[in-house]
């Protein structure tokens, strides 16, 4: 990768995983590295930038996808996908370098953690996954009526899909909506299939009296289960950062 040409261009893509894989395909073929890659909805126009619009090509992205599994390894695909879900500003360029070098040297790329972009990609994956894991615990459903549940979250990373799938495995017979308020995306599952849509002002009817009773029971349990002699609010805060509090039922 050392003899690749650095070109003074800013790539703008549509912000989808397929879009990013299209860029990877083209860059690897032409052996060029752009200066920046930005998603179109994050891009703020700057007259110094030499912008270049990338059109998502599903055939190219499919080829890249298959090639990652075949020529690098499955783990690299997970690294790429979860790093892509993270909210880092420079994730795209790091993923591009990581994959292109990976195509050259194969699965050995994952051991080269002293290279900064490999380390960053692996770290971004870890970050996204750890937030996903945290929310698997901290998400709270409200039952609207029998077996239909609604929940709001405010995550830093775009982890709606892996999070939703976790709950499908867990409660296949339920119907639920998980609403990512930071991105205004909704994960909707109707007990058969799921879809992620941009939400258009979902109105939630008021919850049942049973729901309120269970919320009260939970708050009661939450308050009685901690031992007063061992109070340690700092430790509590460390595990449960304040940014997650607004979606909880209990009041820590």
């Amino acid at each position, binding site marked *: 990768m050392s003899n690749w040409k650095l070109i003074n261009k800013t790539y703008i893509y549509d912000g989808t995983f397929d879009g990013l894989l299209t860029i990877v395909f083209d860059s690897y073929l032409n052996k060029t590295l752009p200066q920046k890659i930005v998603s179109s909805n994050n891009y703020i126009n700057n007259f110094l930038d030499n912008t270049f619009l990338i059109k998502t090509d599903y055939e190219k992205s499919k080829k890249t996808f298959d090639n990652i599994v075949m020529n690098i390894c499955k783990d690299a695909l997970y690294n790429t996908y979860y790093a892509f879900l993270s909210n880092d500003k420079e994730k795209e360029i790091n993923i591009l370098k990581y994959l292109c070098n990976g195509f050259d040297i194969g699965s050995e790329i994952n051991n080269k953690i002293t290279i900064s972009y490999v380390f960053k990609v692996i770290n971004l994956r870890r970050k996204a996954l750890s937030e996903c894991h945290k929310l698997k615990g*901290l998400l709270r459903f409200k039952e609207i009526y029998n077996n239909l549940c609604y929940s709001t979250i405010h995550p830093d990373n775009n982890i709606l899909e892996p999070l939703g799938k976790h709950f499908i495995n867990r409660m296949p017979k339920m119907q639920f909506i998980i609403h990512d308020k930071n991105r205004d995306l909704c994960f909707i599952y109707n007990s058969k299939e799921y879809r992620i849509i941009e939400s258009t002002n979902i109105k939630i009817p008021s919850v049942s009296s049973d729901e309120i009773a269970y919320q009260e029971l939970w708050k009661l349990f939450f308050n009685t289960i*901690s031992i007063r*002699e061992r109070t*340690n*609010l700092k430790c509590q805060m460390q595990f449960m950062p304040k940014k997650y509090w607004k979606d909880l039922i209990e009041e820590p």
Partner: protein
Amino acid sequence: MKLDIFEKLEILSDAAKYDASCSSSGSNRKNTANGLGNGHFSGICHSWGADGRCISLLKILFTNACIYDCKYCINRRNNNVRRATFTPREVADLTINFYKRNYIEGLFLSSAVIKAPDYTMELLIQTTKILREEYSFNGYIHCKTIPGCSKDLIDELGKLVDRMSINIELPSSNSLKLLAPQKEKTDILSPMTYVSKNIKLNKLDKNKYKENFVPAGQTTQLIIGATPESDLKILKLSESLYNKFNLKRVYYSAYISINNDKNLPSLASPPLLRENRLYQADWLLRYYGFTANELLNETHPNFNTILDPKCDWALRNLDKFPIEVNKADYSTLLKIPGIGILSAKKIIRARRNGLLDFIALKKLGISLKRAKYFITCKGKYFEKVYKFNENFIETNLVYQERNSLLNTDFKQLSLFDKLQPTKEDKIKCLTGNL
């Protein structure tokens, strides 16, 4: 909904809070087609209480109306506390409804002994049967084995639950005689032996035993500070529990003075630091290849209050150091203070692509705070470590710990102060996680 369920939940969760165990790990029970819930192998914490302990299971007693009179226990017969008893249906409904809303990962059902051990055990079985069979619940269930119950009932319960535990509580038979005169040592150890034997058999012969038996294993709990045992004695007990009974975890619970009795110490505050040291040492036993005799001995029967057990051990065994990070194998890397399992694995992976120096270690996110005194990179010491002797290292380590202590508490240390717990003692990351 009936109002008295609120009162019951309040009484019976309050009575259950002294049990340290809360983990939901070790089981990956699959969901059934029409079922509700599944196990998550590494466990999921759903909330954290004001004491910083994680809440992952609905931790309640079935009843607190106990026939025993154990002196340390809040539910002892002679205590004047409110008593309540759930019905199996109430517990099952509460569990399902909490689970559906993602408040909890499952149920942790414990109980005082009501009427007789077998009678209590039958109530626990009824509850788990409703959950597993009627509601097709496949989430995590942790049940207490009642001391002195019959073996048939253990068999029955073991097939329904993920984890079983029986609390030893007092770390020697003398203490047991003194504080829990109605319980016999064999009442506790014989069910434990039986469960661990059955788990082993079940794992060996999957064809003969179609159902899983306690897939997430067995745990126990020891109370720290109610009786005069030394850390060495407690750690040795844990070690033999891990080796002989194959336990998954031994939990340590700092004693909190709740009852007044001439045989009980009256402590101003629970011995949290001591509890934390024991947890740290417990980890060293299970994951780092240490033995109890390496960490403590007759001349050092208790843990250092300022330094963690691994640092303390390293200082007493300086002949094994410094360790060259580019050459040492995995098990040797694990013995370096400040290097954990993740860091050791990172080092092994990274050094395949060339020799590591201190800058590379920092880049990998490996903390050198303690490790720098005990390692060399490419044969060189860390630049500020210009002496390699016990005095120099100990002074620096103690200085570091005290420094971080100053930063957290914002108060001047005086010569006459008793040493306070360090910053990381306060972060009780070990309890309940993993």
